[in-house]
């Protein structure tokens, strides 16, 4: 058991933080600290969470200035007695640590996140996708996004231009574009090939550093930049044998 100061940003008056003292053991997380505060000290504190095991992606917040998942951040590992907890940057605060994810999902929707099935494929057959196929290779390690918004909040470019697609949306577009079952190639490429699309990225790598799932988002963005520069190569890669 150790005592920690938790400074929580509150939405009531401007820029106000409230300080709480909580006792935590070495396995407890920032989310635990918030629950303790809410249950025992200040029930008006609001934050978001659902799964508490790093799967839902709803508990992202800035913890000592880094966007992270509260449920996956053990307080001990922060190596600090005072912990500052703030809502994610670049997203409007709704209450305390709860932000509106709308800007993130507005960009997400721009790349047509849903599968647009190729009508030529037989819907009664499962696609044959060997792990060594182009899609298998490209998608490796990229499919675990939990839409937590940490990358969006970390990106300095998003901070200076809210029209920018943002890393997660581009990664999603990349996955759908490489998917042999999908048919909305041109629409997505057009969306990416925009001054607020992939070209806005200045390879800060902040998204990569922030992503709790370890997704290499810059890699996806660069892949898309190259695909736009060399369309033939991109289309060759897409057309691998499927459903032989």
């Amino acid at each position, binding site marked *: 058991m150790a005592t920690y100061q938790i400074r929580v940003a509150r939405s009531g008056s401007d820029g106000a933080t409230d300080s709480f003292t909580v006792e935590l053991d070495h396995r407890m997380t920032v989310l635990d600290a918030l629950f303790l505060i809410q249950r025992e000290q200040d*029930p008006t504190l609001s934050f978001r969470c*659902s799964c508490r095991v790093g799967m*839902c992606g*709803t508990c992202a917040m800035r913890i000592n200035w880094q966007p992270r998942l509260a449920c996956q951040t053990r307080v001990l590992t922060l190596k600090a007695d005072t912990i500052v907890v703030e809502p994610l940057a670049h997203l409007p605060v709704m209450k305390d640590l709860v932000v509106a994810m709308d800007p993130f999902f507005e960009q997400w929707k721009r790349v047509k996140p849903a*599968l647009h099935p190729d009508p030529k494929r037989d819907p009664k057959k499962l696609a044959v996708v060997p792990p060594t196929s182009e899609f298998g290779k490209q998608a490796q390690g990229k499919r675990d996004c939990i839409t937590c918004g940490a990358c969006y909040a970390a990106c300095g470019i998003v901070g200076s231009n809210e029209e920018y697609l943002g890393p997660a949306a581009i990664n999603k577009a990349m996955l759908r574009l490489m998917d042999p079952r999908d048919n909305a190639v041109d629409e997505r490429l057009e969306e990416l090939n925009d001054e607020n699309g992939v070209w806005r990225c200045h390879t800060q790598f902040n998204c990569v550093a922030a992503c709790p799932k370890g997704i290499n988002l810059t890699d996806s963005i660069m892949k898309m930049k190259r695909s736009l520069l060399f369309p033939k190569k991109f289309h060759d890669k897409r057309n691998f044998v499927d459903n032989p």
Partner: protein
Amino acid sequence: MPPLLPLVELEADILILGAGGAGLLAALHATTINPRTKILIAVKGLLGQSGCTRMVQGGYNCVLNPNDSFEKHFEDTIKGGQFVNNQDLAWALVNDSPDRILELENKCGCLFDRNPDGTIHQKPFAGQSFDRTVHKGDLTGIEIMANLRDWTLEQENITVLQETRGLDLLTDTNGKVVGALLLNNRKGEFVSVKAKATLVATGGGATMYQISSPSLEKAGDGMGMAFRVGAEFIDMEMMQFHPTGLLVGKSIATGGLLEEGLRGAGARLFNKDGERYMERYSPDKMERATRDVVSRSSYMEIMAGRGTPSGGVLIDATHMGEKFLLDNFRGMVDRCREYGFDLLHSRVEVSPSAHYHMGGIRIDLNCKSNIDGLFAAGEDSGGVHGGNRLGGNGVADSIVFGARAGDAMAEYIRTAKAPGDVSTQARQLMEKWLAPLNREGGENPFKLRDQLERVMWRKAGVVRNGKDMAEAIPEIIEIREKIEQANGAGAPIYNAPWNEMINTVNLGVCAELLTRSAILREESRGAHYRQDFPEKNVKWLKNITVKPVNGDLKWDTVPVKFTRLKPPELIEQEKSLVH
């Protein structure tokens, strides 16, 4: 002056409460049948980022391999459920689930793990005669929900109200369900929705136990709401406990799961004295025994004082080797590491964890409840799994029956009349739910919820007996009475105590039905284990049903219809009768 929150009035063809697998599949199917169906989805958390479908690790059972068969899957399901499943529902589950996988992949864009040759990979899961579990690594739920969410986002006929919870169902003078009253936590306003058909798919209430695995926001809301309009429930005593919930001290992460596959792959369980105790309880199957057996064994070890100081047992996977674990259980290794456990090199503390409620609203093949206009699917409904659910059948249930509900509602609304005015009723209900927000003083809802969880854990949990449960009833009733007087004062948006109060009201309903049901079943079957009746009893090849009638509970026992498969003990009995 107490705050009087605004009431927004909306209308839809289909109202879906809950956006887990069941809710979104219903939307998908209703939209497929008629893309102009006006669908409104209310979800307590974020769309696609709440509920247990999101948290599914192991995977989804379905028959895809020519060497497998529906009959085998069906038999596994019925045997797992110890023959009290509704066999027609179980057959529908088995029969539909391959089609739904095709739909998830080819329509929604999921991609499950593949074999090296590119065909779909199916892994073994406990209690199954064939390797038939489709998965994506050990984080299958994210793949399913993220893709369903993306599909939903692009539909123009679907409106989603996020962070909006159902409070109560609205009924017309004939008792027919015609929509629901919702609370929008984002805006701090009530919403009354008039709908021709209403689906509850809020994912059950295993969270009524002290140690439980589901997502935190779930609280038996759907069952609570349905109960208040007179729905009939079945198998309420059947609550599955997962044997390997992580024990993370006082952390909220306690109860979060270590995947079943770990045990399947050969992980071992030890008590505090380093004894492999499964040798005593299930010498032939050891740790690979079904969930109920392993959970019970662990629980008895802990109760006998052979648990760790924090009340758990130890799981050991170290002998499987670092590489194997990292290749196959990456997610679980990481999860342990998050809390400072090292699954690769040491034993990890686990405890049984309340996981899945087999019981729920009684439905037919079209997910219709006994109340006109009210449909239920997923964990809120009961009957499919009988006394025990196989790993991998849960998400299949929510996907299959969600889809069935979607189809059925699309059909139903073609002839259903538009509901009349509901605003008077909505306002009455609104006043009821507003009371705690304006209350001064009163009980602390967090404390009451804790109390309920503790009572349930100790007296109606993994191992039950008549005496303890009889004691539990007045305690539950007291909590249910007190919670009505709880204090939920504060701002109307994101008000945690207020929401906890509503949660506890609903959990209280589930808890009481569960405990009373468990008292009635004087035998041990599946997940329901009675110390005072430790054996299975042929007389209990029955389902317990209950519904509220004029403020009272009307109980009934219905013999199981063995439309496809007869239990061996019954066959034997018949034989002996003939001779």
